[in-house]
């Protein structure tokens, strides 16, 4: 890393920096040596930072107009949509922003899975990332409750009821969470408070996530350590800044399309019906980004075991650096892992799909098979694969792939197809 001593040019700068080395930090961030072969899948870290800031800024603005009360929440949201200047814009950015945030985080996570970014020495970055992901789910779920529509109310009822599966104390815990004997005003106000708090916790963890990243530096598509910083890396500014900026703009075009042209397509129509404890919707479905876990939950016939399966599906990810026994990081050089990777992607997509369907008949069967496969992938396939798999030769450095010569990845890829 850039461990050269930094001294500010100006006297005032030096005076300040000796007392609080902010300028050293800024210099580190600008000069931060980044592998030059990063592809566009690596731009989602920056995109996620943008998503978080967008959610916080729009969320603060919404909170100035929103009323967290069971009798007034729905109306206050309509007030925002109709009477607040550009309230519709702010709310649609916030609501679709949540979906965009998850879209980006899933790409970010699956990029990490493909290129083995979770492996030593980056385990801590990965685990912090999983905690961020968990907090994101909590924040998104509570945010969905705030408009106090039918899906808000019944989604909250279903999810909080999961805690009743805990033996002996379950019922007590649920009453405690609700602040009463059903989801009601006390539930809404505490969800609002937590929904306001969690993004700032995420912000703090993001700082740690980036800090932990800046210790070993970025992984890269070939998955090998940097040999010669002068040859293998570029300074973060301007090279990565402009590339991340370009990718962010592309992402914003998609984002804008949702906000301006199909702002409600990712939500459920029932959430435009005010919450009614007397009427249960025909199908209670969570937001799309939670569907795979919802499918896992429902695929287990026993409530407690279902909850355990669902939570394990998330927490198993934290153990991933130790479950994957292969020393090779990038799937580019792991022909078998690459195939299992794509099966896992398909498996998660299928889980998401059946999560949106009623849990019966063929759907339930598919959900069970897909759930079983999800765990088999992490608990059986990955550990075994590390010992059995014949990996391809790894280049000596980012700039000098296997046979030397061309610095680009295409060489390594050609090599791979030749060995088939």
């Amino acid at each position, binding site marked *: 890393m850039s461990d050269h001593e930094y001294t500010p040019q100006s006297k005032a700068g030096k005076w300040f920096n000796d007392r609080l080395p902010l300028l050293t930090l800024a210099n580190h961030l600008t000069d931060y040596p980044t592998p030059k072969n990063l592809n566009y899948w690596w731009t989602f870290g920056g995109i996620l930072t943008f998503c978080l800031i967008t959610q916080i800024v729009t969320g603060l603005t919404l909170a100035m107009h929103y009323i967290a009360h069971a009798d007034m929440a729905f109306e206050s949201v309509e007030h925002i949509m109709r009477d607040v200047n550009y309230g519709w814009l702010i709310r649609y950015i916030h609501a679709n922003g949540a979906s965009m945030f998850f879209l980006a985080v899933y790409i970010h996570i699956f990029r990490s899975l493909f290129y083995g970014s979770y492996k030593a020495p980056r385990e801590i970055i990965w685990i912090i990332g999983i905690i961020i992901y968990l907090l994101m789910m909590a924040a998104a779920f509570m945010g969905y409750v705030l408009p106090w529509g039918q899906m808000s109310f019944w989604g909250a009822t279903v999810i909080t009821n999961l805690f009743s599966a805990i033996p002996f104390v379950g019922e007590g815990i649920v009453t405690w969470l609700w602040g009463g004997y059903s989801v009601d005003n006390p539930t809404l106000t505490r969800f609002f408070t937590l929904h306001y708090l969690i993004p700032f916790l995420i912000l703090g963890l993001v700082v740690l996530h980036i800090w932990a990243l800046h210790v070993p530096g970025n992984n890269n598509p070939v998955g090998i350590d940097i040999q010669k910083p002068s040859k293998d890396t570029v300074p973060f500014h301007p090279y990565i800044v*402009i590339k991340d900026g*370009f990718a962010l703009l592309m992402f914003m075009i998609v984002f804008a399309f949702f*906000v301006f042209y199909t702002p409600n397509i990712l939500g459920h129509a029932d959430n*435009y019906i005010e919450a009614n404890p007397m009427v249960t919707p025909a199908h209670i479905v969570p937001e799309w980004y939670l569907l795979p876990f919802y499918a896992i939950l429902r695929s287990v016939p026993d409530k407690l075991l279902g909850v355990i399966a669902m939570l394990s599906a998330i927490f198993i990810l934290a153990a991933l650096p130790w479950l994957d026994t292969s020393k090779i990081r990038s799937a580019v050089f792991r022909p078998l892992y690459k195939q299992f990777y794509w*099966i896992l992607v398909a498996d998660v997509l299928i889980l998401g799909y059946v999560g949106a369907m009623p849990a019966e008949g063929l759907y339930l069967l598919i959900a069970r098979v897909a759930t079983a496969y999800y765990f088999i992938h992490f608990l059986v396939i990955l550990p075994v694969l590390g010992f059995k798999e014949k990996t391809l030769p790894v280049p000596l450095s980012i700039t000098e792939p296997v046979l030397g010569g061309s610095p680009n990845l295409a060489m390594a890829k050609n090599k791979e197809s030749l060995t088939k």
Partner: protein
Amino acid sequence: MKNFFKSLLHISFVFVLSCNSMAAEKVEYLKTDWSFKGLFGKFDRGALQRGYQVYSEVCSSCHSMKYVSYRNLAEKGGPEFSLDQAKAIAASFEVTDGPNADGEMFTRPGKLSDKFVMPYENEKAAQAANGGAYPPDMSVLVKARGGGANYIYSLLQGYEDPPLGMTLDEGVYYNKYMYGNKIKMSNQLSDGLVEYSDGTEATVEQMSKDITTFLMWTAEPHLEARHRMGFKAIVYLIILTVLVYFSMKKIWSRIETEV
């Protein structure tokens, strides 16, 4: 081997998709060309004004619209009644206000700032008057139904005699677009039910289209502003993206030569 897994992925997708079509025996909603769809979609002013007429003469006897104010009727992007027309519409309703200095509630003519007057005092009164069924508030109704505008448009024209063997309870009607086919609202529209002041012929289809357009506006009063801004925002983003792309190429060209 690689191809094998790719085809496996492919098959699983096709399988999932076919499950989808198997499970859902959805009725196809009637479609019409909505003026508010598309990148530049705008409301048809005439349809909005006629739609308001249908709402006020037909729907509003049972359905409330509690989030819409009379002033909205004169606002840009809506039916755009003149301010005087909107004032006259508001004044034609009796609004309960108060308490006054004596602690009494009183009634007065409606003002632009008032919300649409509700047909019933509360939800219970609405239920009592409608055989136990609550006529839903119409403010955001289009967004609160899965099929959106097409669904409302179809439902209004979907009244039929029940199929043989199906018996309907008192006050329940058959509608081929309703979820479960049973609806507690009887067929409300018939040809010539209202007399449009602009001379448009009031067929059931025409009225369904007008009222649905009106309901789309009440659900999304800023739709036109949204479409306008969206187009500008996306054009701006595309231009900026192109500029940033070329800047990026220029900056990165320094490296390529160095390597």
